[in-house]
């Protein structure tokens, strides 16, 4: 076991785990976060995704000792008690069915829009294609992304726009 320092959602933590422990289990079991979830443990479905250095990363296959930058999880997207526009769009469009995969959908969409605020439909499909949903909420997720794009472009969520991983 080794002591590892982590910064998650703006807060610093020290955990005592094996170096190769996947980040996912540290986030869930040591830091009590519920956003990232086990879907496959293989980096195939995206349920475990978090944002590191602006990229949506599979926390299930990321050794905790390799994480050198701040980690943002689903819980860290809201700012000053306000949901991120992507999350708000998810509610407006009622995107989830069971919702278990939605952490990955939201995190992937957020990372996409941070890099490319005006993606085409094809770019949305491509960026989201590795994030799976077994309830098949995909159509709604894509609608919600388009809503979020519009809202963010309108600048009506100026506060929330400042939230950057």
């Amino acid at each position, binding site marked *: 076991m080794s002591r590892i320092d982590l910064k998650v959602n703006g807060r610093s933590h020290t955990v005592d785990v094996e170096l190769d422990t996947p980040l996912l289990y540290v986030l869930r079991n040591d830091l009590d976060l519920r956003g990232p979830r086990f879907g496959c443990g293989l980096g195939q479905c995206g349920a475990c995704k978090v944002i590191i250095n602006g990229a949506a990363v599979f926390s299930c296959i990321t050794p905790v000792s390799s994480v050198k930058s701040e980690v943002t999880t689903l819980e860290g997207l809201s700012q000053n008690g306000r949901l991120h526009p992507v999350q708000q769009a998810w509610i407006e469009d009622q995107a989830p069915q*069971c919702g278990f995969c939605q952490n990955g959908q939201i995190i992937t969409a957020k990372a996409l829009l941070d890099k490319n605020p005006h993606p085409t439909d094809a770019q949305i499909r491509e960026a989201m*294609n590795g994030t799976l949903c*077994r309830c098949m909420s995909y159509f709604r997720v894509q609608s919600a992304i388009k809503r979020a794009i519009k809202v963010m472009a309108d600048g009506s969520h100026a506060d929330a726009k400042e939230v950057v991983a």
Partner: protein
Amino acid sequence: MSSSERLPKHIEDVLVTHRRGFLKNAGLLAVSFGFFGPATVEQVAAQSGEPAGSPGPYRDPDFHQIDSWIVIHEDNTATFYVGTTDPGQGTGTCFRQLMSDELDIAFDKTTCIMGSTDKTVDQVGSGGSFALERNSWPMRRVAAEARRVLLEMGSEHLGAPVDQLEVNNAVITLKADAPNNSAKRVTYGELIAGKRFNVTLTGSNVYAITGKAKTKSNPELKYAGQSIQRDDIPAKVDGSLKWAVDVKLPGMVHARNVKPPFACAKLTGIDESSVKSLPGFIKVLSKGNYVAVVCEREEQAIRAARQLKTTWNKPPTAPFPTSEDLFNYMRTATPVSDVRPGGPGESEPHPSSRSVAEGDSELRNQSSGRAASSGSGIQVPPSRPPAARNPEMREPVSGPMVVGNPDAAFSSAAKIIEAEYEIPFQGHTAFAGAHSLADPSNGQMTVYTNDMKSYSMRRGIATFLGMPHDNVRVVWMMGPQGFGRSAAEDAAFEAAWIARQIGRPVRMQWMREEETAWDTKGPAFLVKMRGALDSGGTLVAYDFHARSCDHNHVGYNEPDSVLIAQLMGTRRAKPAAGSAAMPSDMYAIPNRKMLGEVVGLPILWETPLRTGNLRDPNGPQPTFAAESFIDEAAAAAKTDPLEFRLKMLQASTQDDNGFRRARSIAVLKAASEAYGWDSRPSPKPIGKDNILTGRGVAYSFRGETVVAQIAEVEVNRQTGHVWAKRLVCAHDCGFVVNPASLRHTVECATLHGLSRALHEEVRFDTEKVTSRDWFSYPTLRHADIPQRIDIVLVNGDPNPNRPDLPPYGAGEAALKPMLAAIANAIYDATGARIRRVPFRNDRVLAALKAAGV
């Protein structure tokens, strides 16, 4: 008596605490959350830092008491307790809408607690798309009765007769035209909070209970019929929801299974020294062929399970053919049973080992009886061949159901067409991997699960562990999917058994490869069909012969068929036969022969190819065959496939299925109008473009719900890739309680059908399932999603003079015709008929080549 005496102490505590917590966070949650949301007691408890539960024993809430269903608080809010579960199709919100309407209380002043065996009455949980069709009625009657009782109390309080009173938002006042009208008022909370209703309802079972009050008619409902946002979504979006995977208890340890490397393997050795020195290692547990490891931390258990050295013997014969050989095997196998007459794909062929609540079997029989007489438009003939007894089976083997004289019709036909359809095993492959936490504290057993049937789980685990019923409780919490008999049940039994062995709370979770390989499968079907057309192009005879590979169909939470019981060797002696359902269409075809048979794999136990209920368990398979075949008949008759169907629905008949035919016609016409269908035979003339486009239609009933779907596809001639560019679904499930929520469910079910059409197939060699992850068991992805989806809610009775059509089930129906709609569209685009599911690129390409396209 105060409400805190009425309820277990901790519930009152957590409710109060939760309200405080809500106010504190109101700025965040007010986005669209109800006054207080749908969190379960345990979620609330965990969020508020309360201990997770009472020490037990856990007695059944009495469904005869209003107090078991409704609690009204001092602040004039209400909590509804219902014995169902909502894995994400919005039924919890619908229950609140209906109960708020019947009670006359504002929707946002209510909350709903679901599916925990010690808090809510046994309504089975969820399944069969029965939430609104069946389970909502007792809730409504109880709420209506509570309103009646409160009005009587209000009458005494205000000194005015009941007929001079009215209720608005849980406040009783005198009517404007009442004599001695005054501003006097009293709230429900003032009348009942802190006290019990103490009103006993009548009725022999939970579905039959009623008070004296009548429920409201549809036009009187205020919230039902409105698109109120689902109350579970905000907490799923902001990360605050506590799921079943999130429960943690002091002293909890982590378990992982070590599955046999091949089907029906016999464990010959465990080398515990291979893991003993690993950090956090606690124990290897084993009984029969069941093996699990327990460690302090989750990643430690995962490592130990992977590293544990075990040795196994193979069975003397191959447990099954390969997935490539499956249909050849099924073609030549000896059937073990035929389908029981009638059931056109009803979803609950295998109720739990105990009949669900007393009287439920009666309802079930009524339901299937209805289906038998009207579902397939045929009557069971009096001249059934004599039954032969197969010692393996519960049901006698018998011959086909025959209507008219199909042999004569075939011999005088102008044209005979034949086709054979193949639908492989398909899986739940739920996200997460099956999981559960079992807590053996205080000599009790509390199981936290996302399984949709918490009540049968309680009975099953009590029996499996040999514990008294009252010492076991099951707490339902949110989880992934919930499409039937998933492996969530297996994981819960395993967690409970291990917790009993080691005396600590045990969290069990299956890994991806376990879930994909070992979850229960929807049965594979092989369907042979023949049709006779007369010289006018009318389908005059029809021969449907289905074989399903479904010999050992595991039921819900059966202590003697759950996987751990199979592996430990404590399984039942005889397998439970599955079924091969009949088509559900209402076409007037005068001569029909219909036969459904079940075949089994060589080895039935301890195999990953075990069948169980998967969303519309035997609906999509026969519907794919039957609705593809109707298209083939239309093409043979050179008739537009939609008009061909309408003609068979409009033909005059002597039977009493006019109402179902009228609703069939209504959805087909609604889908046609929404799509902009142009009448012409299929296939359309094939041009030279690389991308070929076409459209197909299919329709079916599921229970009383009828669905018509149209797919427009693009087929890439060079790659064989199929993209469903546009989908239309016309859906009639009677009265619609929440249109937006229903559209959501229908849309996702439609896409689930698309996933099963294009991608899903369980693959295996002769000893193990080789579909083990999301690549070897592909499902629909973002890139597959149509450009446009139109959902048309046909909403009920074509006769406007009958406004009170009740709500029917909607959780599964839109999955059913999709496979055939896609296949028919591929044919329309290319002239190539694809009869094997799924329509992978290589198969489509082969079909195109065979058709010379």
